[in-house]
């Protein structure tokens, strides 16, 4: 895209995009590390995820400040305006994604050390992987103003929803058969729900990216029988 006549405007937009890229990278890492901590029962790594969330929150505040400044001083128009508004909305959502990852990490120490023998846990890493990739791709789509990539993210949400329904069923079955594990399984249910919400939020980011890139609302999603049970 051609440069603005006023170079400082380009610098501010670049800074904004840089901050969002960093925030997205950190949110993605938080999800992956939280899942790794869960798999390995690594309380140190879990604590690290919780601590690192502060930086995500700080970036949100920094972006909000910068967006207000750009709107006040540059009066952005057209695609610039859509980009800046999308940036403001995206950081709010990515901050929530970070909170979900943090919440997963906080549950790691609460799950007994023997949780690796809990059969339904086996699905969670793959589910977390899909959600982390959605976050990654949604933020990449923003960086590249790529509406097709955003659409692909939106479509992938059903994968996470399917995972969630599957985990939900197997956990309920497992709890019925092994009532002593109900406490751990309840935590795992929340973890699965957190990942499912991360998928939804990544989808929201992708919808904002689609709007910013095209000026059109993202097409309505197909909502077949794959939506999560509780919604």
């Amino acid at each position, binding site marked *: 895209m051609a440069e*603005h*006549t006023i170079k400082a405007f380009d610098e501010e937009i670049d800074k904004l995009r840089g901050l969002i890229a960093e925030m997205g990278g950190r949110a993605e890492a938080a999800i992956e590390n939280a899942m790794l901590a869960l798999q390995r029962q690594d309380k140190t790594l879990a604590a690290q995820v919780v601590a690192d969330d502060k930086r995500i929150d700080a970036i949100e505040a920094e972006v909000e400040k910068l967006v207000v400044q750009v709107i006040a001083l540059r*009066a952005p*128009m*057209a695609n610039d*305006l859509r980009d800046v508004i999308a940036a403001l909305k995206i950081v709010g959502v990515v901050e929530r994604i970070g909170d979900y990852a943090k919440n997963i990490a906080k549950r790691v120490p609460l799950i007994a050390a023997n949780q690796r023998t809990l059969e339904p846990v086996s699905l969670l890493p793959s589910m977390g992987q899909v959600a982390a990739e959605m976050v990654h791709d949604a933020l990449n789509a923003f960086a590249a103003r790529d509406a097709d990539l955003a659409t692909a993210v939106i479509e992938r949400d059903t994968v996470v929803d399917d995972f969630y329904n599957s985990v939900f069923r197997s956990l309920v079955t497992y709890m019925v058969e092994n009532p002593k594990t109900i406490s751990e399984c309840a935590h795992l249910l929340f973890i699965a729900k957190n990942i499912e919400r991360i998928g939804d939020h990544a989808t929201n980011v992708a919808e904002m990216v689609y709007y910013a890139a095209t000026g059109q609302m993202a097409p309505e999603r197909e909502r077949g029988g794959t939506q999560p049970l509780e919604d």
Partner: protein
Amino acid sequence: MMHEPQTLVPATQTKMTARDVKVFYGEKQAIKGVSIDVDMDNVTAFIGPSGCGKSTFLRTLNRMNDTVASARTEGTITLDGEDIYAPSMDVVQLRARVGMVFQKPNPFPKSIYENIAYGPRIHGLAHGKADLDVIVEKSLRRAGLWEEVKDRLHDSGTALSGGQQQRLCIGRAIAVEPEVILMDEPCSALDPIATAKIEELIHELRGRYAIVIVTHNMQQAARVSQRTAFFHLGELVEYGVTSDIFTNPRQERTKDYITGRYG
């Protein structure tokens, strides 16, 4: 040959239409086939970089270009369906129906009262002093100037501030009961407060007159207009609903211009 407007915007009541309008200054073509509808109920803004032809095109709408010896206009422009370039058209009458306000306030070097009264008097719109008094007050009220000048109507118009002078010029245009008011960068010589007053005035006049404004200030176009036309190199590139033009322009050239990437 009739051309459809480049982008059709649903108009409630079309006041003026231009079809395939071309303007030449000697050999040089300044306007390259512009078709547009101006409607009664919306303020239409013309934007574009210097030399894009927006002012030249504006001046075709009341035949101001006739006063430029080298200028030649082709195409069809109608006011209420009537061809304004037809030989039978009385140009003086046309310019009373399609008034104009210029970049620099240009009151006559006469009293405030006379500035307003001059037009109605020569156009025979008033019969006697009482009639004129009514027209002067009504015009100054509509121009948002009455309260500021009612006690000094016989002071010179040129003694007013720049913003007041511009509102006086708008009042002068209004006094002859025009149907269309053309404004050629009416605020470019004014400070922000005087500019805001003119913009507020444009809002109040909207609907009573068809208003077309040429402006270099895109924020102003966004603030005062409901329809925006973007001109570039003598062409009408895009014409649409103002909020669409400024959030989601369809043409790359429009986008580059309004986002500050032009040139």
